[in-house]
């Protein structure tokens, strides 16, 4: 073995420990994705290795090392069936890093661990969009680099702080270069190749069923569903309905969406102004997108409109995306609903909710006109003592009956459900639309935050000659009949979203500002793509950018940064010409030179002092003290201003001929 090579030298406990810490810090961000037994195994082998090292032993027995490696990797493969993909790959890499530390003997082994730490950091970032994660992992890589510095450095006398500062300076100098590379490196639209998608995370937000009798905690969550920026006009508050899943099928208790069919709604003519906006959706693991009422244009190639007017994608939304959409808030149709659609949207379970049917029959008698009938239903909600609450009493099988006649307490789902049942009982095609209503305006960055507590349900009713009309029975409840504690509902009626409304205005302002920063981060950094690159190049005066032009711009940027870097490094290297200690040293050397004792260019302060002591014993002690002090000021770790001043003053006062007994003549002359 080449034991003489410096990279093959034995590692110390301290080096082993700091690399273990780096690995642990990188693993910390993977803990959610990695199986517990794997983390435990890694922790155990590292602990054993560290304990051995602390006691001065070397690696564990070879058989044990190989055994642990084979068994753990084997189990991992049996459990995952693959090592492809981010999660499986990270799991394998983490295990390999742990095993590598287990058998670490030489620096070269730790080099491998460092490489794995770097790659684990990257793997965590591939599927994340968090600024904090990036900041954390950059810190981890800085620590790892510091560890490498201490590993390579053969004179370990320097302290951790100094190593960290030097590694930090190198990292800081790397930043401008990284920015240039990041800005101009060509981006591609799709992936280079498909990787198996990892286990789906939990669905969030709205689902495609709704059971008003069940208890929901959706309304209390202040998790952001999406953010919207309007280009141009913002629709009035009463028109900001974000359509999500449309529910048709009712079994007396639960509403369900039916299969979403591709194809536009039958002959709907948009009415009123079009609104253009950008929706930044958070991942929710659903196929649908949220758009303002009736979208007609969007910039997502794989998204399509269903016959219900929903905007859906073939794949569930697992990453945040941005979609530009243009919508109208109202539609009109002079046509009739197809027979199938009419039948579907007037269906009610025959055995359920008899009292509701009875009520519908009575109302219908006095309101033969569809529109008049619907208004009468709304009027009923307005007049009768219906209350809005987020904690409604649970309902049984005849949920609508119980709600309308007994409890009279509920939230949007109850009201939409009741209205739909009443309309359908009267033979009017009605469906339930779930989605979001309203949102919080962020005045710091001109966009709206729509959070889960803005979730809402309303109805669309087919009125012959008008087409689908939006009815929101919840809005019929007078604000005075909102129960205390149901913050979100209050917010809704007050046109303000709940969680964003804080008792202290500065707190809510701070939250909004923070959210604005997040949005900026998302728009500028996370969504940076080829188009953004083209725009940037356009701003730099490069028109019609192609590969060659981009490469040229990037090359020019890199050259500039390299020139800056070289200049920076040169500047660091040059001794400060205004350094008082250096100036005083120069003065001292000149004084000695005029006394016939020039310092030789190759002579350091100490050897110069030794020579002076031999050649001029009379000056020796005084010069020796000064030169020794100079060395300490120059090479010492800390500088003390007092010593510095003392040195400068003593050099100024120093006269090589002053007290020489033999130089009386020169003093006279």
């Amino acid at each position, binding site marked *: 073995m080449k034991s003489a090579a410096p990279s093959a030298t034995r590692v110390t406990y301290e080096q082993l420990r700091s690399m273990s810490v780096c690995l642990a810090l990188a693993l910390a961000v993977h803990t959610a994705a990695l199986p517990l037994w794997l983390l435990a195994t890694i922790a155990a082998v590292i602990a054993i290795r560290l304990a051995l090292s602390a006691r001065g032993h070397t690696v564990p027995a070879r058989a044990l090392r190989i055994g642990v490696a084979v068994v753990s990797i084997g189990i991992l493969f049996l459990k995952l069936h693959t090592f492809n993909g981010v999660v499986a790959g990270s799991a394998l890499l983490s295990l390999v890093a742990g095993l590598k530390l287990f058998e670490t003997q030489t620096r070269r082994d730790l080099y491998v661990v460092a490489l794995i730490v770097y790659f684990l950091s990257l793997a965590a970032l591939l599927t994340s969009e968090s600024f904090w994660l990036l900041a954390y992992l950059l810190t981890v890589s800085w620590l790892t680099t510091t560890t490498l510095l201490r590993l390579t450095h053969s004179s370990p006398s320097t302290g951790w702080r100094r190593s960290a500062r030097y590694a930090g300076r190198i990292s800081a100098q790397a930043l401008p270069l990284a920015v240039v590379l990041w800005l101009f490196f060509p981006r591609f639209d799709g992936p280079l190749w498909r990787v198996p998608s990892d286990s789906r995370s939990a669905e969030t937000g709205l689902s495609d069923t709704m059971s008003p009798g069940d208890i929901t905690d959706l309304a209390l969550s202040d998790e952001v569903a999406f953010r919207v920026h309007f280009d141009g006009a913002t629709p009035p508050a009463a028109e900001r309905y974000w359509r999500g899943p449309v529910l048709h099928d009712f079994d007396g208790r639960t509403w369900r969406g039916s299969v979403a069919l591709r194809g536009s709604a039958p002959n709907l003519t948009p009415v009123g102004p079009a609104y253009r906006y950008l929706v930044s959706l958070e991942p929710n693991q659903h196929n649908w997108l949220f758009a303002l009422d009736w979208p007609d244009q969007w910039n997502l190639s794989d998204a399509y409109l269903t016959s219900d007017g929903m905007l859906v994608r073939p794949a569930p939304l697992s990453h945040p995306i941005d979609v530009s959409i243009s919508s109208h808030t109202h539609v009109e149709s002079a046509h009739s609903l197809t027979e199938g659609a009419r039948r579907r949207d007037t269906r009610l379970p025959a055995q359920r909710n008899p009292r509701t049917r009875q009520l519908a029959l009575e109302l219908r008698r006095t309101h033969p006109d569809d529109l008049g009938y619907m208004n009468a239903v709304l009027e009923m909600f307005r007049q009768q003592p219906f209350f809005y609450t987020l904690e409604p009493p649970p309902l049984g099988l005849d949920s609508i009956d119980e709600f309308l006649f007994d409890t009279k307490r509920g939230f949007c789902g109850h009201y939409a459900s009741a209205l739909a049942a009443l309309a359908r009982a009267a033979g009017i095609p009605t469906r339930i639309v779930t989605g979001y209503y309203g949102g919080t305006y962020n005045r710091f960055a001109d966009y709206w935050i729509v959070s889960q507590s803005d979730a809402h349900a309303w109805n669309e009713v087919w009125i012959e000659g008008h087409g689908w009309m939006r009815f929101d029975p919840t809005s019929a409840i007078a604000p005075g009949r909102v129960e205390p504690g149901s913050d979100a509902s209050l917010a809704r009626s007050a046109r303000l979203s709940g969680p964003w409304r804080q008792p202290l205005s500065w707190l809510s302002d701070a939250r909004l500002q923070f959210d604005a920063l997040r949005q900026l981060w998302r728009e500028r950094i996370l969504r940076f793509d080829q188009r953004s690159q083209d725009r940037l190049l356009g701003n730099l005066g490069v028109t019609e950018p192609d590969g060659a032009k981009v490469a040229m711009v990037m090359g020019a940027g890199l050259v500039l940064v390299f020139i800056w870097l070289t200049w920076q490094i040169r500047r660091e290297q040059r001794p400060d010409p205004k350094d008082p200690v250096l100036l005083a040293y120069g003065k001292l050397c000149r004084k000695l030179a005029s006394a016939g004792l020039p310092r030789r260019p190759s002579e350091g302060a100490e050897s110069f002092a030794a020579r002076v002591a031999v050649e001029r014993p009379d000056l020796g002690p005084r010069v020796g003290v000064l030169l020794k002090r100079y*060395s300490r000021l120059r090479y010492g770790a800390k500088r003390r201003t007092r010593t510095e001043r003392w040195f400068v003053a003593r050099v100024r006062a120093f006269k090589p001929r002053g007290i020489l007994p033999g130089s009386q003549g020169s003093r006279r002359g």
Partner: protein
Amino acid sequence: MRSLRDTAIARIRVWYARRHGVDALPVKIERRRIYIVPTRFGLLLTALLLAMLVAGLNYSSNLGLAFAFFMTSTVLVAMHHCHRNLLGLTVDVKLDVDVLAGADALFYFMLRNESAVDRCDVEVRLRTASDSPRALVEATRSVAIGGYEEVMLAVPVTHRGVTRFSQFELRTSYPFGWFRAWTYVQAPLTAFVAPSPAGNRPLPAVTAAAGESARSESRGEEDFAGLRSYTPGIPLKHMAWKTLARGGEASVRVYSDLGARPEWLEWSALEGLDTEVRLSQLSRWIAECETGHQRPYGLRIPGIDIPPGRGPAHRWRCLRALACHGMPPA
């Protein structure tokens, strides 16, 4: 593989020597003479960076790309720092070194750092055999801001003669071991390897003194200069019988008048012996003259005549003459 690499290194060194000629010492390492390549660790890291880039592009992850580019930039900046670690360093070395065969030739290198940054882990390397690149001596030092460091390389020498090294190397893989920067300094390092003392011939002066016994005896006891150990061949009348009778070792009296006259160590006095044996005997005589008595000594070997003298400088002058005997001039 190894031999291919070694051949390449040897080629580079030869090419470098042609390109730069002989350096005037002290040498300040400038930009154009520093070479830098990634180490094996650096190459592994480069492969890792490529993998990071591909992963970032494949997942269209701007954060992943940001991290990959940050690491790439760190590596590039580290390359600068590795290069900088040698740049502007001043190196000086005492070119000529005298040594006895079988000992280590000690070359003293002086590294001076006049800049405002520390120079860490600078390796001074000297290849001791041009045919095998593995044969080298090295030492690592860090030079503080404005400071200097003396580095000693001990090169074992076995054969008498003049051993020349045409260049030495300064190298560093500071800060992270990702790159290796190096420079060759073309300096004719020369070890004058004197023969190690051997042989049992008595000093010629003592034998000469035997022929002039009458004169030396007439000087009487006042000129007695001291005792030296007896070697066969010395006339018995010089024996210090009293010392021997007291149980001391066999010694001979040495008289100061002998010290006043120079001792000539002559090549011709060792007729009939092999060259190396002769040189070793001369070396022994020089050692004896230095340690034994107070007389100056001179050296006469073919082509060289060193007038009598004493002291370390004189001794090494004589030894160097022995080392250079029969050697082609530099």
